[in-house]
């Protein structure tokens, strides 16, 4: 095997993706760049009010027009992208952390701990989608941090469930047995041996829900339970535009298209990455033993995780293939 740099390996890996996946990944990259640099490059301030220009139609100076406070809608969309992407990333990171901790506790703890966590997961999965998040945000008080907190607190169960089964499987592996035989403590086994090996699948798992989280954030913000004015957020912008949508439909169409486009890009990229990993089974390239090991767990996750809603996943992968915990 010729010596390749990391960058070359990565680019060749990307180039073997499905074309749709490549387009989606580039689109996602563009969206991230726009979120990072858009507000800075586009000179207009998202919060600058120009009362004389309130509710104007698209023009050269304001390509998407202005809202009821005379604020530039394009600038607000850029800033909104930041909050949507950052918020979803924080939620996914939080969910993964809780999922990892509780999954490890369930997998390494005694029978009692395992049963308690298992029952808790089952019961929380019985509460559908946004219902607990809606209730918790409303009670904590509507604000963006509270919304993120509510989404994290209510959506860790599916993550914990998959972490538990991943860790249980790794625990049976030879390398873990050897480490335990050498006298490694549980902590060393978990953090030094198991964690690096499940990192890949964990990352995929975290991104699989990314699109759903963006939609959830937008829905609850639309209801007024998330980002508070004047900070722009896509869902909130749609709600603000409702009062004027008969005459200025663009104010509502644009943020909606942004949400749809982002979720589409995220879902398709995720699909393509999972397909690519699942397809590695058929690749003729030689791989070092460790990455092959990691690859095998990656494939398992690729089979388990899809951006379908939680319920569907549970029905499709849990009950009928006998992999339910």
């Amino acid at each position, binding site marked *: 095997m010729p010596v390749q740099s990391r960058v070359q390996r990565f680019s060749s890996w990307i180039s073997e993706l499905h074309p749709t996946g490549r387009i989606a990944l580039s689109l996602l990259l563009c969206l991230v760049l726009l979120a990072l640099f858009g507000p800075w490059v586009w000179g207009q301030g998202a919060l600058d009010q120009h009362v004389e220009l309130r509710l104007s139609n698209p023009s050269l100076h304001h390509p998407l027009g202005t809202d009821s406070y005379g604020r530039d809608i394009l600038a607000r969309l850029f800033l909104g992208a930041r909050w949507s992407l950052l918020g979803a990333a924080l939620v996914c990171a939080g969910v993964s952390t809780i999922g990892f901790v509780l999954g490890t506790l369930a997998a390494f703890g005694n029978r009692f701990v395992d049963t308690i966590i298992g*029952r*808790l997961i*089952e*019961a*929380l999965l*019985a*509460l*559908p*989608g*946004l*219902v*607990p998040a*809606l*209730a*918790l*945000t*409303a*009670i*904590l*008080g509507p604000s963006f941090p509270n919304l993120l907190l509510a989404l994290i607190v209510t959506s860790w169960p599916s993550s914990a469930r998959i972490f538990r089964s991943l860790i249980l499987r790794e625990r049976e592996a030879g390398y873990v047995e050897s480490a335990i035989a050498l006298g490694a403590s549980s902590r060393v086994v978990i953090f030094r041996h198991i964690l690096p090996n499940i990192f890949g699948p964990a990352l995929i798992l975290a991104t699989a829900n990314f*699109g759903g989280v963006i*939609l959830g954030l*937008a*829905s609850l913000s*639309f*209801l*007024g*339970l998330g980002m508070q004015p004047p900070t722009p957020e896509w*869902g909130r912008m*749609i709600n603000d535009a*409702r009062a004027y*949508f*008969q005459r200025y*439909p663009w104010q*509502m*169409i644009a943020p*909606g298209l942004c*949400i*749809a*486009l982002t*979720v*589409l890009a995220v*879902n*398709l990229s995720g699909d393509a990455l999972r397909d690519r990993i699942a397809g590695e089974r058929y690749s003729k390239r030689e791989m070092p033993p460790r990455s092959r090991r990691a690859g095998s767990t990656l494939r398992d996750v690729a089979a388990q995780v899809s*951006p*379908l*809603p939680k*319920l*569907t996943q*549970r*029905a*499709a992968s849990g*009950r*009928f293939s006998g992999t339910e915990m």
Partner: protein
Amino acid sequence: MSRFLIARLLAVFPVLLVISLLAFGLQAITPGDPAILLLQASGVETITPEAIQAKRAELHLDDPLPVRYTQWLVGALHGDFGRSFRSYEPVTNLYRDRIAATALLALCAASLSALFAIPLGMTAAYWRGSWLDALAQVLAVIGSAVPGFWVALMGIYFLAARLHWLPAFGTLTMKGVIMPVGVLALANMATLTRLTRGVVLDVLSQPFVRVARAKGLSTREIAIRHVFPNTLGPILTVLGLETAHLMTGAAVVEYVFAWPGIGKLAVDAALLRDTPVIVGFAIAAGLIFVTLNLVVDLAVGTVDPRVRSV
């Protein structure tokens, strides 16, 4: 079958227990004194400290948490979930009066989506790689990416405000039902098409299909006798769960159309921070889910004997 039935029924209790603990916990962390809020809601003009004390004693607010939980649970088992902080109506009545409208919406949307999605998913799987398959996939991908409340607003803009074909608000009339049902079915269809396609492809790759082919059965016979019965289980499961999801997760769409269902009730309560009604929604959602899950499991157990042996 009876052992399966008993096992499934017993599994419901721990779930209900956790849901009740969560519901009680949500109530316990609510800021503000429920006694004062309830006295205000009941229309008492001047709230005296004595009245507050009496109300607190009536609500057992001064007892330790475990005692309060037990008392709350006893009340809940008798159908008493407290009163709204705003209208002073009993929460149970509020939900009882609105559940039918939501059920109507959910059932119509679920049937409509099944009517289109199942044949589409099956055709897509059979003619894999054809333009129909491509269309099904594109529909599924877009359907799961577009926010439902935005589709609802677009529908209102184009069909109601521009073309004047349909009313802008959901009402319990033939015309008023079309748009809410259509919007909910659209999102549902995406999931269902994708799932049906996957399930059919999965069944088609099973050895028994190959055996049937080797026996010389025609494609049609294989489809009707071997493929379709084996796809029923997963499809029924998802359809049931989606219906439960439509009854509870459609809150935002209900809110946009001002549909007189439990979702709109919950969203309005959330905006007013009316805790008893919000908690009532979590409980209602949990009950709907547990019930429909049970029904689906039993239905699947009936059509698929493999599930029963678990």
